[in-house]
């Protein structure tokens, strides 16, 4: 038996060392890090549409703002403007305002562990435009549906948008979002922006 003692102690020590070095969790991926969001190169407006949908799904404001141009403007549907007490709520809606509002909405979706999804309509009519300030391409009356889902609730926003894109340094980006209600029971993205939170 005495010859076995060193063996017992060695086995015990090895087992202890083997397990004590393992009590650390792995480093998680940062959900705020845009690098974790899959995106296509913005070589055409369709790729930007795909990227926007992916950014909403990954709830990443940083990646979303990469798709938004420096001259971005948002124009709401008049029905959405009248839904709020403040008639100036949507005035001068630029890129900085979009960054704050979308940031709040997507952060709330993350905080409440909501599954978010944006689906573009398949009927896409893309044409060229030139409004005197910029020129590029646009989709007319593009359908969209945005959903936020948890085990307890489901909130859907839908509408149509005239979406304008311009090319900057060979990369396409969103130039203007003209929002329209679609007549359904769902609120539009303009209402979501105005509320600055998910219903």
């Amino acid at each position, binding site marked *: 038996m005495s010859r076995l003692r060193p063996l017992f102690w060695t*086995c015990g020590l090895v087992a202890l060392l083997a397990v*004590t070095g393992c009590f650390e969790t792995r480093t998680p991926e940062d959900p705020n890090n845009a690098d974790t969001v899959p995106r296509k190169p913005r070589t055409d407006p369709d790729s930007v549409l795909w990227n926007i949908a992916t950014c909403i799904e990954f709830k990443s404001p940083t990646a979303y703002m990469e798709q938004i141009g420096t001259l971005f403007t948002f124009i709401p549907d008049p029905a959405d403007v009248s839904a709020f007490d403040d008639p100036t709520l949507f005035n001068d809606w630029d890129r900085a305002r979009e960054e704050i509002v979308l940031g709040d909405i997507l952060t709330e979706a993350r905080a409440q562990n909501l599954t978010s999804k944006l689906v573009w309509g398949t009927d896409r009519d893309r044409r060229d435009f030139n409004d005197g300030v910029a020129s590029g391409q646009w989709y007319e009356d593009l359908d969209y549906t945005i959903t936020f889902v948890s085990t307890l609730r489901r909130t859907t926003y839908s509408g149509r948008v005239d979406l304008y894109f311009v090319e900057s340094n060979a990369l396409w980006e969103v130039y203007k979002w003209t929002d329209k209600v679609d007549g359904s029971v769902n609120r539009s993205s303009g209402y979501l922006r105005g509320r600055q939170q998910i219903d």
Partner: protein
Amino acid sequence: MSRGTAPRRPRVGLCRLLPLVLALSHCAEARAQSGTPEPPARVSRSPIFRRMGILPTYSSGVDINRTDLGWRQTLDIDALLGPVRGENNWNLTVKDNPAQNNLRSRNGRGLAKLAYEVEGGGGWASGAQFDWRRNFTRGDFNRTVDNGTNAGLFVTSETPGLLLRPLLAGRDSTRTASWIVTGSFGATEGKNVRQTRGRAAGNPLQTQDSTATDGVTRNLESQLHLDAARGLTIDLTGSLASVRENSRTESRNASWRNEDLEAVPDSVLVTDTPNRSRSRRATARASYRPGDRLEFTMNGAATRDRSQYFSATNRGQETKVGLDDRLELLLRAEPMRGVKVSSTARQQKTDIALTLDPNDAGKEETYVDADIAFKTGQRFGYLRDLQIEAEAGATDTRYARETLADYDGENRRVRALVRRNIGKRVVAAVTGESQIDRLSYDDKSQDRDELRLLGDANIGYRPNAKADTRLSFQFTQRQAINIPAAQASSNLTESIYRIEAKLGYKLTPAVEISQTYSIYAVASEFDFNENNNQLSRTSEVKSRLISSLTPKLRLELDHDYRFRDSGSYLLDRTTNVRGYGRAATEDYQVFSVRTYYDLTEWFELTGGQKFEVRENTTLANGRVTRTERVEFIGGGDIRHTLSEGFSVDGNARWTQTSAEKPYWKISFRMTRSY
């Protein structure tokens, strides 16, 4: 992962066969331990039953909980008529609950075994077994029936052991060897009905996947036990079982028409399938004990199952092929006086392959665990007399799935406890524990780590025989970490700090008081959602008095006061310090009085009253929510032996509370052996 090939012949579940196999093996084992039939452990007191050689035992019980009524009765009859031994067990359970959709349930089961031992026949025995099952449940919206009957004949022989004993054990009379072989053949029949009804008025019952089966069962089992050498014991068992069944499954939708539902045409699905099931099992156990301080044990088992049944999900005859292999090694030793070591290592592989269902699954697990316990001796100086227990373990599991991503599960754990008596009045103990579970998916889509840390230190001090004090501190941390960015926003680290002091004092031999003070804080930190961080702080005082007012009367008083506040626990990015913003408070008090009176040695009356108040305040708007609850519970406990073999045991409680309607809770059992 491995995937079973489609079987050539269909099969059915083995659930009906297994009880028979187990019962037969039990019977054979009992036979093996004795060359002659054993009389029942007790003999009937009734001269008539004694003359008949039977020992009946009857028990009956009732359970009432609010509207739920249950009644159960059981009759056991053991019989010994010369070389014939019989065992009977019959039970009936009735349940009714009008508040649960008018539930009515009737379950009956009867088991009868008869065994005949051939005297002087070298351990030959044969017999029959009958298993009868009738289950019926009906409510407003469903009706289920589960009936089954199994009958079989068996033959058991110890002759192989007797013949091979000289070969297995030699001439050494101290060694024992036995080999028992049991064969059985039986018939099985079953009927299963499932019917449901829509909640709209007037809907008829629909029949869903109701099955009728009949078939035959066959089983062969072998048990070999051998004391091979000094300290070495070997047990080998093996079994072969098969079931051939003809199964008819019927599904019928009746048509109806009402305001809520459209008309549904009649549809009937009838499936006739010849099911064939087979099970092969082998187990081996070897134990080697060379001395009192060392023992090795090895357990091995291999099981192969193929079963066929009607799959409600896939609407057809399913074939399931199962595999389960395991090997386990255990070591227990005392390498030095006072030092105890034990270790377990296990490797297990399971696999389930289904023909229709796309949910094949497999698992391969490696488990290692080791622990040690010892007390330090004089050579450790000041650290002498420490009682130390340490345990470390690791489990690695590979999960393979047909349609979903495969993944690896890792578990690592370590635990240590150090305890020491400091003088005669003080005991100190420190415990540390850590455990991590790690899931790693092949596609990394759901990688996740869970970590748990525990530190506990407590010291107990008994200044004299009347007083007892204890002070403890505990820290617990739990981390739930999702690795992919898509799920990482819910990552949570929860830290709990708790400090507690307890004082107990015996005022007189009949009166004890105690008070416990505790403060604890729970911090919930979301790594990627700072806005959700929460902190709650709780202070609690528990007081207790236990008094024996008279030898027959006891009194218990309890009071618990708790105050808790909670709110956000946010990080100030300018100072990098977390700040606490109190948002809500809770006051909670409960006071209870309970009395117990021993009316007789076997009957105790009890009565108690409880007052409970909870007040929640939201500081932002000053809203206060107050809930009060008053409760009275009274009743009695009975535990009495009326005569030898005749006993009753039960309790009844009447509860009157401000939270719901008054109700009874009664549990009563009566058992009588004749």
